[in-house]
């Protein structure tokens, strides 16, 4: 089938690449409207306090200040998840973290806005702070949400699939390990920006650097109490997201309110420090893992506990909590599985989704533990993964439906390319290789608010000259979604991606796509585009076939023509065919849609982790680690990724390389660190991300398993390739020096401490050795899926 494609599978530039490189791509902060005011947010200086009073009179009296608003002006709560409507755009009666917006101003320029912030007098009555997981689990500290004292629990979960005790009973070897994954943040280079314009006729337009215009649209409807039909949300090109622009944010809502109050456009652009406080990044997660193995390495049971430090509000946290337990089974056949997890509130910036959303943390733990078990059992690290690897067309014990799956091939390919087998355990001291795998969803199976409507819709309009315009609400955040849509439609119509005119991410003009999160756009918007493209093509084929007196099935769209069979140059040019179709059946405008199949299992929490398809990755890292200084130098990375089908291999490689890069940053330096409740370094000087000098060569291996439901067989690549990178580094450090760093990031101080421990006769392990003694809720016991039996697999 692959050789019948014309543009699918062909490496090519983004459709907007020249606009970007010529400096003409307009991001939100590049937009300017006549009479525009500058808005700013006043951050809380307190981590946990009651707001006794806010005096804005000084700011209001300042020349050039047009409006000052506080929490009282925006009393309606919101949150990305229907079950976590716990945020206000501006704090109302309490502040819960340093940096939380308390008031907002609009002024004629940035200096005046800053002076106005300085003149706002907020009186706080401090409360005891809850700064750590242990403090959150204490019974004698104030509740961050609610009154009185007690444990600051957000949500907990306890699920068992199969019979874990029986599984452990059948094991020849059982391991228990504790791991900690530090929090990190996205730091997209474009800081968040929002420009709001309220018109005299009562309509509101918001331009915002958001990954999710649809959810921002819904939030504004609620918080501003305006019909959504009077609100237009536009996401201009977004300068990087990685999950950091996936919540509705204070500055978006405040800009709208300030524009409504002043009658003038208002732009709020966060500065870099404010972005660190806005956060929504990787949750710090403490993990305890107990796994039983047969002597051949087969897993008999797994018990996984996670403790998430969520920060001050809910955000995506309930989903994140379940994600820390959901995808362990997506790579390995775990016949009996127990997951217990809890997310707590603390007085720190809010955690949310970052590339891999809740799954890099357990993936780190799982892949490191497997390496340890392989060593215990005398099995090769690749072999223990292969013997447990999930197979295509199977069900997991927690009711995930696996369809296409080339996990085994990704392992084989990466092992072969890297020479892993001849290097592991064989390289000189200080040099090592590590292997790990991962899997990720091609889109969350369910929308954030449950409904029966399509998750993605695409419209195509063809003009009489043959010009094709594609409309989709999918926001291009750099991942290339606009190019993906152009390529899918171009393939359907026999045109070039560069022929397509793309209108995206505008709630007035484009049909709904839920947003650029959960690696859903290629699969879902791509399928909607394929559906719409097929409809356009069918109408054109019908008209042309009538004209030529042949069967539409004989026609082919290719190279800008509608041709008959294999006869090149036959038929007619595309524009002529379009005019025939318009004459025959009216305007050539078609829409398509996609909705994922029903996949949820029979238990509460099963909505998280299900997906119409899973991507698979395997990674080998080779590194040098200086035994004296603990400095790690990554020498080369091999990453094989099962994408189903590469719609554009150039962009696929870009996502793999970017995922490896971000994974290496989290492995080696990045940590969202706090001194008490105060962010330690909200700047690029303190929060180190990899530069050109830190990046090794990355060898990308694209594996195509041709997914049965993906558009042209495609699956995701935006998030999956990050997952195995972090544990592959940890495993390579172990191979290099024999030490185990069970806590990210793997900084020189930890490695030196581990080496010192070895020299004193210790095991050379650095990391937490206990988890809190927390009483999880009673286990919900879930029967394995139908057909799941002795042979383990079910189709």
């Amino acid at each position, binding site marked *: 089938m692959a050789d019948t494609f014309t543009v699918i599978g062909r490496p090519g530039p983004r459709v907007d690449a020249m606009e*970007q490189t010529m400096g003409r791509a307009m991001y939100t902060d590049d937009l300017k409207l006549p009479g525009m005011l500058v808005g700013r947010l006043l951050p809380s200086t307190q981590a946990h306090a009651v707001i006794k009073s806010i005096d804005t009179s000084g700011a209001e009296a300042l020349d050039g200040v047009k409006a000052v608003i506080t929490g009282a002006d925006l009393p309606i709560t919101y949150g990305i998840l229907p079950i976590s409507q716990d945020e206000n755009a501006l704090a109302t009666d309490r502040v819960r973290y340093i940096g939380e917006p308390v008031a907002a101003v609009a002024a004629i320029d940035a200096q005046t806005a800053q002076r106005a912030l300085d003149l706002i007098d907020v009186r706080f009555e401090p409360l005891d702070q809850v700064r750590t997981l242990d403090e959150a689990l204490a019974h004698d500290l104030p509740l961050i949400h609610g009154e009185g004292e007690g444990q600051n629990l957000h949500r907990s979960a306890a699920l068992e699939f199969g019979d874990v005790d029986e599984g452990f009973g059948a094991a020849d070897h059982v391991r228990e390990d504790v791991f900690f994954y530090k929090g990190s943040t996205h730091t997209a280079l474009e800081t968040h920006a929002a420009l709001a314009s309220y018109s005299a006729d009562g309509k509101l337009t918001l331009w915002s650097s958001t990954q999710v215009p649809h959810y921002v649209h819904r939030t504004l409807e609620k918080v501003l109490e305006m019909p959504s039909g009077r609100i237009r949300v536009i996401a201009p090109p977004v300068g990087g997201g990685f999950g950091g622009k996936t919540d509705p944010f204070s500055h978006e809502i405040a800009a709208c309110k300030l524009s409504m109050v002043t009658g003038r456009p208002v732009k709020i652009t966060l500065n870099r420090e404010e972005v660190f406080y806005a956060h929504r990044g990787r949750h710090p997660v403490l993990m305890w893992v107990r796994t039983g193995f047969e002597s051949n390495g087969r897993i008999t049971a797994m018990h996984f506990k996670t403790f998430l430090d969520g920060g001050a509000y809910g955000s995506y946290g309930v989903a994140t909590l379940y994600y820390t337990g959901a995808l362990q089974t997506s790579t390995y056949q775990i016949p009996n599985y127990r997951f217990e997890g809890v997310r707590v509130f603390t007085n720190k910036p809010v955690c949310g989704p970052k590339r891999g959303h809740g799954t890099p943390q357990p993936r780190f733990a799982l892949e490191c533990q497997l390496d340890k078990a392989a060593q215990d059992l005398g099995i090769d690290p690749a072999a223990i993964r292969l013997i447990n690897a999930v197979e295509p067309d199977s069900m997991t014990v927690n009711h995930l439906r696996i369809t296409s799956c080339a996990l085994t091939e990704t392992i084989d390919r990466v092992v072969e390319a890297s020479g892993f087998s001849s290097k592991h355990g064989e390289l000189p001291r200080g040099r090592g290789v590590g292997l790990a795998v991962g899997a990720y969803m091609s889109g969350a199976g369910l929308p954030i608010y449950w409904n029966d409507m399509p998750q993605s819709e695409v419209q195509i309009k063809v003009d009489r000259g043959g010009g094709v315009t594609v409309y989709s609400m999918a926001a291009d955040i750099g991942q290339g979604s606009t190019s993906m849509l152009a390529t899918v439609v171009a393939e359907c119509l026999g045109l070039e991606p560069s022929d397509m005119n793309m209108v995206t991410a505008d709630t007035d003009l484009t049909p709904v796509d839920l947003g650029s999160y959960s690696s859903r756009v290629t699969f879902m918007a791509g399928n909607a585009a394929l559906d719409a493209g097929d409809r356009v093509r069918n109408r054109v084929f019908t008209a042309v076939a009538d004209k030529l007196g042949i069967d539409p099935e004989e026609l082919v769209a290719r190279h800008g023509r509608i041709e008959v069979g294999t006869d090149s140059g036959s038929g007619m040019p595309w524009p002529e065919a379009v005019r025939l179709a318009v004459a025959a059946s009216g305007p050539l405008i078609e829409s398509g849609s996609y909705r994922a199949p029903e996949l949820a299992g029979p238990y509460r929490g099963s909505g998280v982790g299900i997906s119409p398809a899973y991507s698979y990755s395997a990674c080998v890292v080779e590194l040098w680690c200086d035994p004296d200084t603990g400095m790690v130098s990554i020498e080369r990375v091999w990453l094989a990724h099962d994408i189903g089908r590469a719609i554009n291999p150039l962009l696929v490689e*870009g996502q793999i390389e970017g*995922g490896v890069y971000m994974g290496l940053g989290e492995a080696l330096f990045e940590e969202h660190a706090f001194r008490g409740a105060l962010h330690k370094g909200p700047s690029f000087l303190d929060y180190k991300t990899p530069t050109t000098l830190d990046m090794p060569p990355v060898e990308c291996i694209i594996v195509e398993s041709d997914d049965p439901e993906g558009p042209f067989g495609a699956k995701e690549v935006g998030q999956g390739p990050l997952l195995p990178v972090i544990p592959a580094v940890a495993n390579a450090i172990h191979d290099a020096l024999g030490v185990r760093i069970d806590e990210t990031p793997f900084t020189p101080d930890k490695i030196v401490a581990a080496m010192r421990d070895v020299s004193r006769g210790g095991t050379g392990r650095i990391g937490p050795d206990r988890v809190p003694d927390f009483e999880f809720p009673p286990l919900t016991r879930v029967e394995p899926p139908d057909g799941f039996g002795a042979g383990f697999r079910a189709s």
Partner: protein
Amino acid sequence: MTDGIITIPINGEKHRIAVSDNRTLLEVLREDLSMTGTKHGCDLGECGTCTVLLDGQPVLSCVTLARQVDGREVTTIEGLSDGPDPDALQTAFAELGAAQCGYCTPGMLLSARSLLDHNSDPTTDEINQALSGNLCRCTGYSKIISAVHLAALRSAD
């Protein structure tokens, strides 16, 4: 804050601008002249996003005062191309997928231009050094490095 008049040749065009002492070159470009091709990522000289060329050398426009550049040649992304004809780097970056979100791209391109102006055939190590002050969060840099090599190769033809 007193205003003073400065004259800056930007991309070969002279601009006379009244600026206060604390006005940065970045603010002059983006706000006074609406030349928004120059982006900003931190406003503290940490990320390289706002890189422009000053007399051919890369500088961070967010920590360069406008008064300091009075009379000196400034080149921004808008001036990298020759009218509608892109620079070899701009074409190579586009073709090889060196821009993903595109936000670091203008600054990256100007750092790369300065490198090639001084060294027409740089090694990978030299490219890594020259671009080490420009952060990119999307690409992992490898396609950027390849694009610089490609532009150098084509320029040598």
